[in-house]
């Protein structure tokens, strides 16, 4: 694990899930895989293909933008374990984001209010510190956030 100043107080929830640490020339991307034989894209990266059963795959960084396919909210604290979020529970939302030509990925959403989410809206990958360890380290996971920039530019061009 790198211990640059920028990352000392943060760690990813798991290695190999997304690029880490994010830098200007290496922005955050989900790490998937692509079957060497049939091209099926998987996330998280999978050594074995569930379409053609090939055991040959290569790493593939997934698109960081997509559209919201569906969503729901989490309004009660999930059972612990396995959930290791903070004791003081803040409701959050989850959804599937369609990454065109790749796959639909399930993720936490940064917007917890269902009235401010809609199927089809543009979404952008981000990272969120979802819990804090006893030693003060923030644990970071991936999430998608409404991509207002994309919405704005679409509105400007139509």
């Amino acid at each position, binding site marked *: 694990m790198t211990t640059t100043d920028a990352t000392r107080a943060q760690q990813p929830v*798991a290695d190999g899930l997304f690029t880490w640490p994010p830098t200007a020339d290496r922005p955050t991307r989900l790490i998937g895989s692509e079957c060497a034989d049939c091209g099926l894209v998987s996330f998280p990266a999978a050594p074995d293909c569930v379409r053609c059963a090939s055991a040959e795959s290569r790493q593939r960084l997934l698109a960081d933008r997509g559209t919201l396919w*569906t*969503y729901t909210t989490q*309004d009660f604290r999930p*059972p612990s374990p396995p959930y290791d979020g903070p004791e003081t529970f803040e409701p959050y939302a989850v959804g599937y984001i369609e990454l065109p030509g790749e796959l639909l990925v399930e993720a936490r959403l940064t917007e917890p209010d269902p009235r401010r989410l809609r*199927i089809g809206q543009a979404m952008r990958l981000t990272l969120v510190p979802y819990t804090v360890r006893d030693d003060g380290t923030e644990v970071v996971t991936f999430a998608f956030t409404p991509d207002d920039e994309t919405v704005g530019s679409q509105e400007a061009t139509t």
Partner: protein
Amino acid sequence: MTEAVIIGVGLHPFGRFPGKPALDMGADAVRLALADAGVKWPQIQGGYIGSYEVANPDAIVGRLGLTGIPLRGVFNGCATAGTAIALAARAIETGEHDLTIAIGLDKHPRGAFAADPSVAGIPSWYGQTGLFLTTHFFGMKINRYMHEHGISHETLARVASKNFGNAAMNEKAWRRTPLTPEEVLASPVLNYPLRQYMYCGPDEGAAAIVLCRADQAHKYTPTPVRVRSTALRSRKLGAFEVQSPSFPVGEVVESPTVDASRAAYELAGIGPEDVDVAQLQDTDAGSEIIHMAENGLCKDGEQERLIAEGATEIGGRLPVNTDGGLLGNGEPIGASGLRQIHEIVLQLRGTAGARQIPGTPRVGYTHLYGAPGASAVTILST
């Protein structure tokens, strides 16, 4: 091939029974089923028994009699009981046994299931970050379905209200307080758009079904119920299923329910238009709505009108979950599908009491769906 028929059904009430082990609930259900069939335990030649919480449910023979028969444990998530009845029927159809039993029992702790994702082949981060909840899938599936097919929040509430109303007429159901659609809509959101009273809960209970060869049924009962077909299917690549960190983009791939349903209709030589009464997996109110279409009982989107018209109520054209379903009974996983069969058998015999549907029902349909994408359908007829 010999046909299997149901000659006895037994149901231990579903709910909370502090201090009563699951095996004792199961033994009670078996005794009820044996008495209903008019047979004694030593006559049973083999059986299948399912449970999520009890590691060795076949230990039930210690309560019933150590007769040496093969009693095989089965487990397929929420489709467990569909597997138990299918295999008990198969043992008769293939000539292995003349008299078999299917048993299901479970005793779940309070609250949502809290398993380790690794047992489902899913990495730990999925659970740590709060994604490993089956309720998310149900919220997300009905949210998209409502968006695509014009289903309203009021329709969700009507389904829950109907099932609690049916459960109120069922002395063996867990949730027996009728609720109006307005009361359902006033309960807190748990996973948008699903609210507290739109979800079933894990609980406790047991059920048992005694089967025999059709050509011997006259020895036991004047009203055998025929097992016309059973089908079990697992998820296919591309289908939107519970506990999926991702799935492929592409053509819409149908749920295993659609596959199991089609196979069961074809094997039975019975079509959806012939079904008089149905028991569908209503883990939540949205699931009952979606499963109406996935089981061929209506087209996508027709539910909005059908439910407003009362078609799925006990006096309606296609009664669904007449005993209160999972919403009214809760879900002891191993027993749930045999509770469905128990209700269909009562309805086809005409002995469902206050819940009896009008007319002379001839065909009953049961359906289960659960993690990680398994579906079981059983079609019964007089």
